[in-house]
C-alpha cells in the first residue's frame, strides 16, 4: 500500500471517529442549536478537534517510524495526479457547501445550525478528498 494511501486512511478514520460522534451529539436534541454561544457544544467541538489532531499526529508518527523510507519519498507523477483529481472534486463539494451554508441557510436557519452545516461541508469535502485519494491508489487512476 502506498504511504499516502495509508495517510489517507488514517485521516479518514480520525475524522470519522471524532467528528461523526460530535455531529451525532449536536443533533441529539440535548443542545439548543439556536443559542449562541453554546458553551456545551463549543466544549464538545473542542474535544473532537483535539482528539482528531492527537489521533492524526500519533498516526503520522507511527507511520513514519514503521515506513521510514516510504515517508521520506517525495510525491511522484502518479501521487500528484491522484492528489490533483481528488482535490478538484473536493473543491466542488466544498463550493456547493459554501453556497448552501453562506447563501441559502441564512434565510431559513441560524445559530449553531449554520455552524454545524459549515463544519459538515468541510468534513464532507475532506472525506471526498481522502476517499478519492484511497480510490485513486486502489484503482491507480
Amino acid at each position, binding site marked *: *500500500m*502506498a*504511504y499516502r494511501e495509508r495517510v489517507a486512511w488514517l485521516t479518514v478514520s480520525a475524522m470519522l471517529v471524532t467528528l461523526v460522534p460530535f455531529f451525532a451529539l449536536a443533533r441529539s436534541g440535548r443542545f439548543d442549536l439556536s443559542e449562541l454561544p453554546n458553551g456545551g457544544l463549543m466544549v464538545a467541538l473542542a474535544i473532537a478537534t483535539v482528539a482528531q489532531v492527537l489521533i492524526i499526529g500519533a498516526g503520522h508518527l507511527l507511520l513514519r517510524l514503521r515506513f521510514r523510507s*516510504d515517508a521520506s*519519498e517525495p510525491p*511522484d*507523477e*502518479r*501521487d500528484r495526479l491522484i492528489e490533483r483529481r481528488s482535490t478538484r472534486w473536493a473543491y466542488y463539494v466544498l463550493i456547493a457547501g459554501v453556497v448552501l451554508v453562506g447563501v441559502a441557510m441564512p434565510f431559513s436557519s441560524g445559530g449553531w445550525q449554520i455552524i454545524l452545516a459549515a463544519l459538515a461541508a468541510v468534513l464532507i469535502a475532506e472525506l471526498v478528498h481522502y476517499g478519492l485519494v484511497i480510490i485513486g*491508489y486502489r*484503482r*491507480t*487512476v
Partner: protein
Amino acid sequence: MKNTSSGTLQNRIRTLRFLNGEMTQAELGNKIGVTRQTVAAIESGKYSPTLETAFRISDAFDVRLDEVFSWSRH
C-alpha cells in the same frame, strides 16, 4: 492493462527487469524517479506513465521505447 475503446497499452518491464539482473521495482523506481508502488502500477498496466517517465524507463534498461511499451489494438 489499461483498457480504452480502441486498444491496450502493454509493457515488457517485468521481462526487462529480469534481464537486467532481476532488478527490483524499488531499484527501477530510484533510477527513474518514481516510487516502487508506481513502478508496480505501471508494470501491471494499471497506470500509464507520462511520456517522460516512459523514456526514463527505456533509458534505464538501455533499450528503445518501443521495446518497453507497445500498443495493442482490439
